[in-house]
């Protein structure tokens, strides 16, 4: 990779696992839990956040020397809000149904702590290219968890993936359902999102002992 030095690669790779925004840095939990009942919504949310954080990090990084530090929060919020409005309008135009399901949670990307957290911790102190990579990396790390949770909740909760009936038809009793398998409707309710994330954290920390808290 001529374009990316070793450090740059680390910027993208670290947030995917050992420095994951959700499971390690504890940022951006709200949206991660609320919209993951189906895989499609999770994927769209992940893409939206990659877009907002990637571009937002570059913009903040370009402006970092001219923003007075006292009003930087308002400046950051304005940048994010503008980007989120773009996402919201695009969603409304091309996929109205989905924008209805996501509802207020598209707007809540603005206060997604991942975004402010990366602006404060990285973009304010680094150049645009590195900030861009950092933004993409962190948003992708967030997206991976989102998609994982969405995958399990949709598969176990409604027996579908992206709307396709992968486990057979629950009404006509085909596929797995013929063997007496039942959907666990509880997975679709909000508390299970918390528990699924809790289990992901458990698995991750069991595999990497260095992450265990005291």
């Amino acid at each position, binding site marked *: 990779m001529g374009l990316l030095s070793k450090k740059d690669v680390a910027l993208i790779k670290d947030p995917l696992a050992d420095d994951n925004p959700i*499971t390690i840095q*504890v*940022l*951006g*939990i*709200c*949206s991660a*839990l*609320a*919209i993951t*009942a189906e895989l499609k919504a999770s994927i769209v949310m992940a893409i939206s956040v990659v877009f907002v954080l990637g571009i937002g990090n570059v913009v903040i990084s370009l402006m970092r020397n001219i923003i007075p530090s006292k009003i930087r*929060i*308002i400046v950051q*919020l*304005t940048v994010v*809000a*503008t980007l*989120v*409005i773009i996402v*919201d*309008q695009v969603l409304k135009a091309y996929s109205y149904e989905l924008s209805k*399901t996501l*509802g*207020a949670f598209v*707007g*809540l990307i*603005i*206060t*997604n*702590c991942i975004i*402010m957290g990366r602006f404060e911790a990285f973009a304010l102190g680094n150049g645009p290219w590195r900030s861009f990579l950092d933004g993409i990396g962190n948003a992708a790390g967030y997206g991976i968890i989102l998609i994982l949770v969405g995958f399990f909740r949709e598969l176990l909760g409604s027996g579908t993936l992206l709307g396709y009936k992968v486990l057979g038809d629950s009404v006509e009793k085909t596929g797995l359902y013929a063997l007496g398998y039942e959907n666990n409707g509880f997975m*679709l*309710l*909000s*508390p*299970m*999102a*918390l*528990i699924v*994330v*809790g*289990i992901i*954290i*458990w698995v991750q*920390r*069991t595999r990497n*002992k260095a992450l*265990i*808290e*005291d």
Partner: protein
Amino acid sequence: MEHIELFFKSIFIDNMVFATFLGMCSYLAVSKKVSTAVGLGAAVVFVLAITVPLNWLLDQYILQPGALSWLGAEYASYDLSFLSFIMFIATIATMVQLVEIIVEKFSPSLYNSLGIFLPLIAVNCAILGGSLFMQSREIASLGLALNYGISSGIGWFLAILAIAAIREKIRYSNVPPALRGLGITFIITGLMAIGFMSFGGMLTGGDEEEAKEETTVQVEAVETESAKELANNTTINE
């Protein structure tokens, strides 16, 4: 009646943390000690009580389709609702700053206890979420908006207080090493959320009992209605 219903609904049934996962970041980060949790909870109630009614006014008189008609007939066709994110967040950020200055001036002791939490709150999703849900649930009047702000704030306060108390105690328990800290907090929150789901029938239960005295047909109607309402609630929450 409407007010009481909204009050209990936003505290228990649509609890911000357990039903919609709003403000989870600060909920997880600041819940290690009860005293700090109380400080942040109070600040959230305070800021929600101010920003939700304010954003309600903005929504009614500036942002909604046709809201600008008070300026004159030619403005009646304007629809500025796409600006609501930026307007809401600007209001919240400025209000938080303003509240901080006012509290510092008039009540230094309150400032000392809320102080560090106020700036944090501008980026707490619970605050923006309060305004966005106020908009999407079409709260009808300014009084109800104020009520919604305060009661959902109280719901958040209760949640963070409860988890902080549990986390203080759990330090003495033998939790599997990999679950310590964040993992177990998630799972406890999930269990608490399951507990809070039992409040779901709180407001519909009474109606069914009243209807039982009348004909059975009506009971069925009420039941399907309440089931529908429940389904609506869950779709909103999801």
